[in-house]
């Protein structure tokens, strides 16, 4: 059997005396829509920071397309096909929306500006952000900033996209809009990890869900199984 797209094996992470992750194992198949849930502070963001390279895991291994990546710097991981959006948007505020997208297109895809702009405009149109292309990033609304996060991640043409709470704080219609964008990207063959607090969204989107609690995986399965799982109920509702 060939190796999965992403294999997280026995990963742990500590901050001082605090254990943020312990023995986390995840296999992710190509093209999957994968949900990562868990109560606040359960280690979701720490886990994706370890996968994307913003943090180094203390123990365990992370393999992407058969290659050990856990010692690579973040930019190398992006170049190998892992892109992410940030929970709190981090635009390059001195640049326009379009220029924001030209950063990954120059550094990851190695496109010349002319080609990069064409591709970036395509992505922006797909996200309904095209008319804002020439606006400075620091003038965007919250929804637009979230879209910019996703659009910029897409400009790196990732094989794996990690969406870190791209919908937090958005209203109902806006949630649907972002969700549709993610579905569309998945149809193009991109594997997606979605971290979300909005349960309806995760459950609608994901084919498979993992629930973290206090740094450990407590349950894994299809959305319906997860909702029915007593451990998950315990993690959220308590015992």
């Amino acid at each position, binding site marked *: 059997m060939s190796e999965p797209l992403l294999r997280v094996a026995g990963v742990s992470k500590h901050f001082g005396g605090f254990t943020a992750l312990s023995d986390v194992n995840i296999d992710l198949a190509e093209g999957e829509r994968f949900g990562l849930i868990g*109560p606040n502070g359960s280690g979701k963001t720490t886990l994706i920071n370890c996968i994307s390279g913003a943090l180094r895991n203390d123990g365990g291994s992370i393999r992407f397309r058969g290659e050990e990546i856990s010692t690579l710097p973040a930019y190398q991981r992006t170049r190998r096909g892992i892109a992410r959006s940030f929970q709190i948007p981090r635009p390059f505020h001195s640049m326009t929306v379009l220029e924001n997208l030209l950063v990954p297109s120059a550094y990851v895809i190695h496109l010349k500006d002319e080609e990069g702009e064409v591709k970036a405009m395509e992505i922006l149109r797909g996200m309904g952000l095209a008319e804002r292309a020439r606006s400075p990033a620091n003038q965007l609304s919250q929804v637009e900033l979230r879209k910019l996060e996703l659009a910029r991640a897409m400009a790196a043409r990732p094989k794996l996209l990690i969406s870190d709470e791209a919908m937090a704080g958005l209203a109902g219609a806006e949630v649907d809009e972002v969700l549709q964008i993610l579905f569309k990207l998945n149809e193009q063959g991109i594997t997606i990890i979605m971290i979300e607090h909005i349960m309806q969204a995760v459950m609608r989107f994901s084919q498979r869900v993992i629930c973290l609690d*206090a740094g450990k995986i407590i349950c894994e399965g299809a959305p319906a199984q997860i909702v029915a799982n007593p451990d998950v109920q315990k993690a959220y509702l*308590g015992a």
Partner: protein
Amino acid sequence: MALELSIREIDAGYGAVRALHGVSISVAGGETVALLGTNGNGKSTLMKCIMGMVRPTKGSVILKMDSKDFDLTKLSTEEIVSLGVALVPEGRRLFPKLTVEENLLLGAFRKESRAKIPENLAFCYQAFPVLAERKRQLAGSMSGGQQQMLAIGRALMSAPRLLLVDEPSVGLAPILVSHTITKIKELKERYGLTVLMAEQNFHQAIRIADRGYIIVHGEIVFQGGVKALEENELVKNYYLGTA
């Protein structure tokens, strides 16, 4: 005790994102009230509105104390703290490079609480013996459960009358969650506190609460006594998103 917190019809948010829509809740003196809901639904924002860390764009937050009314939307966080309101913040927010004892003593920064330091410190150490054993240790080097104890202890050092606790269960293993919640109940009884606790762990929270509110997408969708909450089938749906 003459104390009442009443929040009426507040809207609040960050930039263009509205996190609270017309939320009204009230907490009477001596009560333990639970604010229930999963994350991202506005619990922390509400706590911050009470503490003056987020300003509501609409509505009022009034603290009645000893027949005086304080409009908390007009006061700074420091002034609210000195009225006798303490918050155990989400994620604990300890000073990681200070020792356990220094963290506790900082809790007693407000002038009204300084006289009672020996008494309060002794009580903290009695309630949480682990803090006494580790009083010279740096706060950042302690485990998650110990840090939560310290955060609660630190809030108590200010000798508050109204204690707000934001997500005490965050990042804790189940056994510690239960332990922490039990402690809050003990402390409440011992000090005669009024407690408002934001918590997503439903069953643990209503174990010690008198009443509760369920908040979903920044709106109160259900309120009632413990019995009503327990018997309500909708709770699970609200929580797990199957509604």
